[in-house]
Each structure stands twice: as structure tokens, then as C-alpha cells.
């Protein structure tokens, strides 16, 4: 028997009665280094109810739920569970109290079979710690069938599809018989039928008195399953209420984004030219499922949407850094099928990658060396080190991009995030950039450097470069782009330009509304 948490909740309150709070969090704060993730959040979870947690990317939803689940310690504030102060230091503590989380990104042991993953850390065992395999297999089958799944429970978890892994992650949470169940975007990888089964399972749990925190970007799901709503913005509670009737989407979106009308616009004079890059039904892996787009000279196009809708993968595929499985990529009048980034770099199509520290920079090397790598890579005679050319390039890049550094000999890791990003962009000055692909170039960059980076993009565009920019922050795209393409589940579902480029319209499309 899996030890059930002590003091299982009493019978659920009958309809009409006000369900008492089970979990209360007040003024929860959390800092990561200098970054404030939570700036004092309040949360009340009622017994036997489903609380929908909403907010834009980076609003702190996941941080809050990980704190409640004992995976992170809070920086301040207090929590109460069933009236008693809640001070748990680890996932073990939390599980003992009946608080269990299913993560957005399943974290499974890839080499172990499904059934072992479901009971990992809470093994069903005989006396002495020997595992009761038969029982664990049986219970796994039971839990999975509750979720309407017939996964092979003996298959190593690493061989499952994303949906399969998500189901295992959820099954693991259910198997622990929680009284507080946190589901962090459980439906992102699931098909509609699987979502239906999950909702049925959630309803059965709440009837037994289990409380659920449900995180999703899909408003329709929130509408279907949630009793209470909590909207977060910038690490704070932006609004909380009990639902009655249908959700007011406008209200939620404006709470999530702050003030949707206060959007400044700033457009340089640019003459948009002929098409340079055209995609027809481009597919790459499971993330990019058929993308059509056209990019013209001197044009700045924004790629919007929630995180993980295939934007990063699309940019990588265009840059030759990800295998293209189908569709056509036209560079001017020629269909190209890149096998490696070099193929595209030679055509002047360059990527400023998603993770600058891992993909964009040699952290231990100097600013000058980092800027010079492209020149070295493209040099016709690789055994010859064009020292003067390298030095000139570094100086030019530092001046042109306003990189704040002691000089080309400073180690690049000593620079601030924004200046590191400028170095990543600067290395492409060695070549004629026809198309610049930028994957979230202002991630972790302060406001000032952010506007400088867009100024650089604008300057390049004036000189004829076409830019395709993915940014997780919609505001900056609205501010700097000529057009915005919204991606949802690997496809472009909306194209906005001119007066149609407003945050509510982008957000609506980002939630898949325009498509469905």
C-alpha cells in the first residue's frame, strides 16, 4: 500500500456551501540572483475545488507552484495547509503532506520503464524495501486507464512520445494520492481526447475532496474545469475571483498584460524591398508543422506566440541548425536544403540563437575572439590568422554596436547580458547578413540594452537586412516590427500588420483562438 497522507480531507462540502480554504499562501516572494520572480503573491486554494492559475510567460506561475511543491524555498511570506503553518523543505516533505506536482516538462528517468517511473521515490515495497513489482505494474495500469491511456507500462520512459511522457508525469502525481494536486500545463502536449479523460479524472478527485491547482494557457480549459481563478503578472497577484458563468476573456487578458492600450510605436524610415526568404509548408520535427512565410529586404518581422510553439525550432531550421523534414525553403529564387549552419551562413542567413551562453558564445574567450570566430570559420585559408582584420573587425563591432567593454581583450563572460548579446550579433558583422534570425534576443537583458539591440536590428534593416525576430515579450515586437506572425502549435495562425497589431489580438491568436 502506498502510504496515504495523514489526515485525508473530510468529505467535500455540498453544493451551495462555501468550501473552506485548504492551502493559503500570503506574500510569497522569490529572487533568483538579482531577478525578482515573485514579488508577494497571495493564493487561496479551497478544498475540493480547482484553482486556475493564469499569467503570461515569466509571470511566476511555475515558480509559485514549485515553491508550494517543496522544490524551491520561498524568499519570504507564509503558507498554511489546513490551518497549520506549512514549512516543507523538500519534495519528500511536501509529498508526505499530500502536496504533489506534475510538471509542465515531464522529468522522468528515461532508462526506466513506465511503471517504475510512476512509483519512483514512492515505491510499493514489501518489508525490507524489496519492490512489489506485480502490484506496482497493476496500479500503474489502473492509474493510466483512469487517464484513458493504454501505454505499454514496460517501455522505457525515454522511448515515449511527448504526450506519453506527460501522461506518465500526471499518473505519477495521481498515484501518490495527493490532497493538493498541482498540474503545471498538463495539457500542453495532450490531444483533445486525453484532455477529456484528464478532466474526468480531476472531477473524480475533487469529489473526493482533493484540491487542484491547474495551470494552462488555454482559456477554454480554464473555463471548463476551474472553480476559482488567480491571474498573475510580474510575480504578483493581478486578480483573483470565483467563477460564475463564462469567463471574461478581455478581463483576463488585460489583467495578464497590464494596460493593453499603452503601446508606444516607433518606426524608422525603411524602404521594404523584394522577398529574400520564403517558406512553403516547412516542417521540422514535431515542433514545426508546416510554416508558410515570406520575408522581404529591410523588413522586420516578429514571431510571437506562447513559449514552445515552435518559434525557436523554426528559426533553427531556417538557419540549418535543425533537420528540415518537409516543405520548401526559398532563398530568393532558389530552393535550398541546408544540411548545416555553414550552408546558410554562406548565403548570408545567420542565427542569433536562443541560448546565448550555450549556443552563442565561447564564455571563456575574449570579446575580440568571440567576434572573430565567424571570420575565422569563413576564411579561405584557415591556416592563416588574419590578425589585423580580426582586430579591425572587433574594434568596428564594439564601436558600432556600443558594446560596453574594457576592450577586445576582456573575457566575454564578464560582460552584462545585454552586451554579451551584442557580441553574439557582432560576430555576424564579419559577413554580409542578408537575413538575420533572432531567437529571443532580449531574454534576460535590461531595458536600456533591449532598446539598443532593437536599434541595431533597425540599423541593419535600413542597410537591407531582413530580420525575423522571435521574442517572448509581445510589447517589444509591437514596438519594433513591421508585421507580426503568431505561432501556435507549430503553425502560423495569424498575421497582423498596421493597426491590427495590438496586444489583445496577438494574445488571442497566441491562445489558439483564431485557429479554432
Amino acid at each position, binding site marked *: 500500500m502506498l502510504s496515504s497522507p495523514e489526515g485525508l480531507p473530510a468529505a467535500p462540502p455540498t453544493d451551495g456551501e462555501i468550501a473552506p480554504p485548504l492551502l493559503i499562501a500570503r506574500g510569497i516572494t522569490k529572487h533568483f540572483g538579482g531577478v525578482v520572480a515573485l514579488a508577494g503573491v497571495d493564493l487561496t486554494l479551497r478544498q475540493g475545488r480547482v484553482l486556475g492559475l493564469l499569467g503570461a510567460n515569466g509571470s511566476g506561475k511555475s515558480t509559485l507552484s514549485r515553491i508550494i511543491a517543496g522544490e524551491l524555498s520561498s524568499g519570504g511570506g507564509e503558507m498554511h495547509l489546513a490551518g497549520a503553518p506549512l514549512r516543507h523543505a523538500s519534495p519528500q516533505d511536501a509529498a508526505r503532506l499530500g502536496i504533489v506536482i506534475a510538471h509542465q516538462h515531464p522529468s522522468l528517468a528515461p532508462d526506466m520503464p513506465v511503471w517504475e517511473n510512476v512509483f*519512483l521515490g514512492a515505491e510499493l515495497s514489501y518489508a525490507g524495501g524489496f519492490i512489489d*513489482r506485480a502490484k506496482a505494474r497493476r496500479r500503474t495500469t489502473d492509474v493510466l486507464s483512469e487517464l484513458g491511456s493504454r501505454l505499454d507500462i514496460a517501455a522505457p520512459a525515454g522511448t515515449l512520445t511527448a504526450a506519453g511522457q506527460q501522461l506518465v508525469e500526471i499518473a505519477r502525481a495521481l498515484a501518490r494520492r495527493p490532497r493538493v494536486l498541482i498540474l503545471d500545463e498538463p495539457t500542453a502536449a495532450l490531444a483533445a481526447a486525453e484532455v477529456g479523460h484528464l478532466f474526468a479524472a480531476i472531477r473524480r478527485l475533487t469529489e473526493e475532496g482533493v484540491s487542484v491547482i491547474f495551470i494552462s494557457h488555454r482559456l477554454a480549459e480554464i473555463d471548463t474545469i476551474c472553480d476559482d481563478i488567480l491571474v498573475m503578472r510580474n510575480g504578483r497577484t493581478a486578480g483573483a475571483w470565483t467563477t460564475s458563468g463564462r469567463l471574461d476573456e478581455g478581463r483576463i487578458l488585460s489583467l495578464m498584460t497590464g494596460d493593453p492600450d499603452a503601446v508606444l510605436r516607433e518606426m524608422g524610415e525603411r524602404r521594404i524591398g523584394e522577398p529574400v526568404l520564403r517558406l512553403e509548408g516547412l516542417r521540422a520535427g514535431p515542433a514545426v508543422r508546416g510554416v508558410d512565410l515570406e520575408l522581404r529586404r529591410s523588413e522586420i518581422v516578429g514571431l510571437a506566440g506562447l513559449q514552445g510553439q515552435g518559434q525557436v525550432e523554426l528559426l533553427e531550421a531556417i538557419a540549418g541548425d535543425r533537420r528540415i523534414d518537409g516543405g520548401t525553403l526559398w532563398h530568393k529564387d532558389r530552393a535550398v536544403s541546408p544540411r548545416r549552419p555553414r550552408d546558410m551562413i554562406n548565403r548570408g542567413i545567420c542565427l542569433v540563437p536562443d541560448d546565448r551562453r550555450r549556443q552563442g558564445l565561447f564564455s571563456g574567450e575574449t570579446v575580440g575572439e568571440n567576434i572573430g570566430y565567424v571570420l575565422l570559420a569563413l576564411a579561405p585559408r584557415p591556416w592563416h590568422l588574419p590578425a589585423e582584420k580580426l582586430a579591425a573587425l572587433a574594434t568596428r563591432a564594439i564601436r558600432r554596436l556600443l558594446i560596453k567593454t574594457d576592450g577586445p581583450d576582456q573575457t566575454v563572460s564578464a560582460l552584462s547580458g545585454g552586451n554579451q548579446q551584442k557580441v553574439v550579433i557582432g560576430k555576424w558583422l564579419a559577413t554580409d547578413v542578408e537575413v538575420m534570425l533572432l531567437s529571443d534576443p532580449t531574454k534576460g537583458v535590461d531595458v536600456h540594452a533591449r532598446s539598443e539591440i532593437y536599434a541595431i536590428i533597425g540599423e541593419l534593416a535600413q542597410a537591407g537586412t531582413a530580420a525575423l525576430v522571435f521574442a517572448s515579450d509581445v510589447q517589444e515586437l509591437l514596438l519594433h516590427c513591421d508585421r507580426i506572425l503568431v505561432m501556435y502549435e507549430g503553425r502560423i495562425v495569424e498575421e497582423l500588420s498596421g493597426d491590427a497589431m495590438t496586444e489583445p489580438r496577438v494574445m488571442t491568436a497566441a491562445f489558439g483562438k483564431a485557429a479554432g
Partner: protein
Amino acid sequence: MRALRYTGILPSLLMLVVVIALNARLQPHFFGLPSLEDNIATLTPTILVCLAQAVIVLSGELDLSVGAGVSLINCLLATVPISAVGGPWGLMGLALLLALALGAINGVIVTIFGLPSLIATFATAAVWFGLALALIPQPGGELDQSVGDLYSGTVSGVPVPLFIVAGALLIWTLLGRHRLGRRIVAVGSNPAAAFQAGISVLRVKLAAYLVGWLLVGLAAIAISAQTLSGDARVGDTYTLTSVAAVVIGGISLAGGRGTPWGALVGAIVLGIVSNVIYFAGIPSIWQEFFKGIVIMSALGFMVLEQKRAAVA
């Protein structure tokens, strides 16, 4: 069949058959009882150290000090008078205690202080070796004959070394059905997932080191009983042999994947390779050279087979 392929043990079994066939051709009376017993007695310490390395590697770490640990324990056994510990069994108890202590030190350095195991155990290997030299600067010393008699004896007809190996494998098999064993694999497979599942990664890795070093202790007892003397270099070759055996046996150096049977097969393959080269009549100066070539080929064969299996 599917299980065999998944654990990657199949190619190493094939290799085992090949080396045994070669050995049987080259070594007169290979399958004769005296020669077989002799081979098993010689192989036992290697097998035990390889099994030890396998536990630690499965947990996602590595231990480059197992060889030096064997030497240190051997030197201690050759120094302590048997009367002081009350006979051969006392001496063995002492060896196991020291092994656990060494394992605990490595485990604590790697888990609590968080040093990379590759470097940390490289350093502790030097420490163990230094201590062993301090105890027995020149090969020598003497172990009581009673220890040797115990090792070369039989238990109801079964030679003691075979008994020890069977015991170690039994422990391993039980571990595979035990919470601890599965948690070791989980931690090696994906430490973040294990942590989020409520497993204490530190405690599990520490436990892996302790279990591993218990086997190292057994190996040291076995080798001491064979040589009946102390030598600060007696364990030298075991370290890298154990790492190679683990790889040949299809255990991922990244942790989390593999079985003890793989380590067993890898250990026997490497042990017999030395035999084959010896009996092939290769001049002694060239023996190491050919051993290196054979190990390289074995590893290459393994890696290619594993890649093929992964694609299939």
C-alpha cells in the same frame, strides 16, 4: 530478447564466446578442472572490482580509486598480525571495515562537497596509494596461511572464489529488486527527475559508493588470500580494467543504464584476454601492446553494436 538488447549485453556475450573459444584453443586443458578452478580464482578479484565499479557508474559517478583501494587494504592485511584480530575472519572483517571507510570518504567528497568524481577519486587514489606505500614500502609482508586456505578451500564441493562471486551477484540481483537499487539507477538516469520524485540524490549516491566499496573490500580479501603478501601496487591495473569492463558490459558511463551481468561479462572478457595473449606465445614485451589493441577492438565493437541497437 528485448530485455537483452536493451541492456546492450548481447554483443558482449558474443565477445565472451569468442575469447573463451580462443583461450580454449590456445591453453591446454582450459576446460580441465584444475585449470578452470585456477582461472576462476584469478578472475574473482577482477570480477568483484568490476561489479563495484558498475554500481558506482550506474549511479552516475565514477571511481578511479578502486585499484589503489585494493592495494591499501591488501597492505593493511599484510601488516596487521592475525592474532590481534582473532583469526582469519577477524582479518576479513577488518578489510571490509576499511573498504567501507574508504568508500564513505569518496562518497562524501563527491556528494556532500560536490567535487566531480573523476577528479576527486583520482586524487583519493593517490592518497590510498601513498598510505599503502607507507605501510609496505617494498612488496613483502606476510598474511597468515589460514586466510589462503580459506580462499582455496571448498564449501560443499564448490570452490570458495566461485562462492564469493555468486554471493556478489546474488547481492546485486537482490539490489535490482530493492528500492535502493532502483533508486541508484534512477539517480544515474536523471538526477533531476529523481530529486523531483522525492529521492535524496546525495543519500543514494553515497549508498552506491558504500555498496561498491563493500565489493572492493571482498576483492582485496581475494587477492590477498591468493598472494599472501602485501604489495602497494597489487591493485593498480584494476581501476581502468573495471572502467573498461563496465563499458564492454554495456553499462552507460553517463549512468542509469546497464546490468551487473554486463559488468560480469566485461570482467571475464578482459580477464581472459590476458590469458589468451599469454598462451598465444606473444613475446612478453609485446603483451601489453596486444592487450591494448584487443581492448580497443572490444570497445569499438561494443560501441558500434550499441549504436546499431539504438537505431533498430
